[in-house]
């Protein structure tokens, strides 16, 4: 509703003068008046603490770290040489380090793909069929694992994947132990037991980041009008065709939004592959090892630039696909 700006003709002169209140007394009153007269003052007052905090503590340390990636370490003394060089970045392209980067990026891609596949039915059911109590249940059902303790989740999987754990027991009860053994015998993804194989690492990553995929996928699917799907069916499309031509393209921004989380979180994690998986390093572990035991801060800093660059490219692509509208 808009209020007319022209004063009412019935308002006489004296009344109009009364409509302008006298300035308030006291410090709080005067302060309050100056806030009203000068909104910028309040804005600056509001913005200064958070901007100072984030700007100094967060951005300050971040830039200090990135700056160190342009230094290098002296191979004989092991001390950092403070002169600008791209030598440290060159080290990233050594076969061993390149292996780490490729390993991490492919794991992130696999996890993202699997998360999208598992998340889609959950998101679709919650968005289209769940009503009332069920809707709330689905929402809490996704929020609880999302927010509950990361370490506890990893620990739970250590229990599940252990050689004497529940998964081995289930396979034995189903008389499928041969299948598990055959899977573990596959060269790259297998191993002595699930908890020291890439399969284990993959499962835990998938589990831990799955809720981050479900929420945006569901948000995107909520916005698909049911009439589109009905119209597609009425026009003779099989469910698979409706999925391919209607649902999937409309859900894609949500999937991309979710994949930003699953991809970025997998790239930077160093705890999961350390606890569950083979001894081969991921980017996060390399960063941790370089800054800790090796004391090579420049190389650690250069390694942290890798996820930033990959995510930068990824975000740029995601933005072009409209993924941020689905967040």
């Amino acid at each position, binding site marked *: 509703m808009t209020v007319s700006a022209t004063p009412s003709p019935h308002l006489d002169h004296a009344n109009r003068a009364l409509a302008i209140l006298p300035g*308030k007394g006291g410090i*709080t009153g005067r*302060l*309050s008046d100056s*806030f*009203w007269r000068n*909104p910028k003052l309040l*804005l600056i007052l509001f*913005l200064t*603490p*958070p*901007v100072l*905090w*984030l*700007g100094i*503590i*967060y951005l*300050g*340390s*971040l830039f*200090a*770290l990135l700056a160190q990636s342009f230094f290098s370490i002296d191979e004989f003394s092991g001390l950092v040489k403070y002169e600008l060089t791209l030598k440290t970045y060159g080290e990233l392209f050594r076969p061993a380090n390149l292996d780490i980067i490729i390993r991490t990026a492919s794991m992130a891609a696999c996890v993202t793909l699997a998360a999208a596949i598992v*998340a889609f*039915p*959950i998101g679709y059911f919650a968005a289209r*069929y769940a009503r009332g109590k069920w809707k709330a249940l689905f929402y809490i*059902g996704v*929020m*609880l*694992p999302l*927010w*509950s*303790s*990361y*370490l*506890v989740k990893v*620990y*739970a*999987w250590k*229990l*599940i994947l252990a050689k*004497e*754990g529940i998964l*081995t027991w289930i396979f034995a009860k189903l008389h499928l132990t041969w299948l598990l053994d055959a899977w573990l015998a596959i060269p790259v993804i297998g191993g002595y037991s699930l908890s020291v194989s890439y399969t284990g690492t993959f499962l835990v990553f998938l*589990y831990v980041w*799955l809720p981050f995929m479900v929420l945006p996928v569901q948000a995107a699917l909520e916005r698909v009008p*049911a009439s589109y799907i009905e119209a597609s069916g009425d026009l003779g499309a099989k*469910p698979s065709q409706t999925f391919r031509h209607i649902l999937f393209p409309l859900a894609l921004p949500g999937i991309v939004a979710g994949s930003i989380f699953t991809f*970025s979180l997998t*790239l*930077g994690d*160093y*705890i999961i592959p350390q606890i569950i998986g083979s001894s081969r390093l991921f980017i996060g572990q390399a*960063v*941790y090892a370089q*800054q800790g035991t090796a004391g090579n801060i420049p190389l650690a*800093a250069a390694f*942290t630039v890798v*996820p*930033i660059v990959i995510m930068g490219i990824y975000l740029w692509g995601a933005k072009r696909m409209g993924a941020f509208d689905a967040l």
Partner: protein
Amino acid sequence: MHSDGRTHAPLGLKIAAGAGLLFMHLPIALIFVYAFTTEDKSYQWPPPGFTIKWLAVTWNRPDVWQALVLSLKTASVSTLIAMVLGTFCAAAVSRSKFFGRETISLLVILPIALPGIITGIALRSAFSLADIPFSIWTIILGHATFCVVVVYNNAVARFRRTSGSLVEASMDLGANSFQTFRHVILPNISTALLAGGMLAFALSFDEVIVTTFTAGQQSTLPIWMLEELVRPRQRPVTNVVAMVVVLVTVFPILAAYYLTRDGDQVAGSGK
């Protein structure tokens, strides 16, 4: 008829969705079973028997208590800082358009969007450059930084739904800025702030990646757990601690959900 597909989901979809939900919950449920197992050497399933003796053993462990107290202290202080900074930021961003507004939003989100290891190592190298010794405050510094975004998100959503005309009406009726804040703005945003605070608390209580870099020799509860995960020494105690951590974080999450559930019914939201 396709239109009745609205109430009846295809069986395949039901199974896939249900299986997905089970996949997300069963592992956490398993923790509760393991906390009461009699077996203390391995992760044997099914548990040979059940006992509550590990609860008592854990209760009498000073290292667990120290870690718990440090975690609670850190989470409380970080949450308070995050609530103040997040609310200020949300108020500024939602009440006016100004140059650099988008940058501010990005700045708030960045600590959680970039992998935690980057935040952690950046803070650690900054501490060592500035010769700051590790203390509870270095942990809080890191935690508050990434908790701001949680409060900010909740507050910004609520500010957007709270109509600006309410503030104007309050001022027209003669209230000054502080009275307006106390009697009009605060009641409207309080549940959102509380929800944001609870989530920030859960986030901080549970954080491990940044903490490993900012804690030095101190151990918060997640750090204690991480050490047990890497070099298991007392599995039964770890099981009980894991269960306690689940319980401590579940309640704030549920509370936050119930606080914001009816958020659409905010006064003035019809405008």
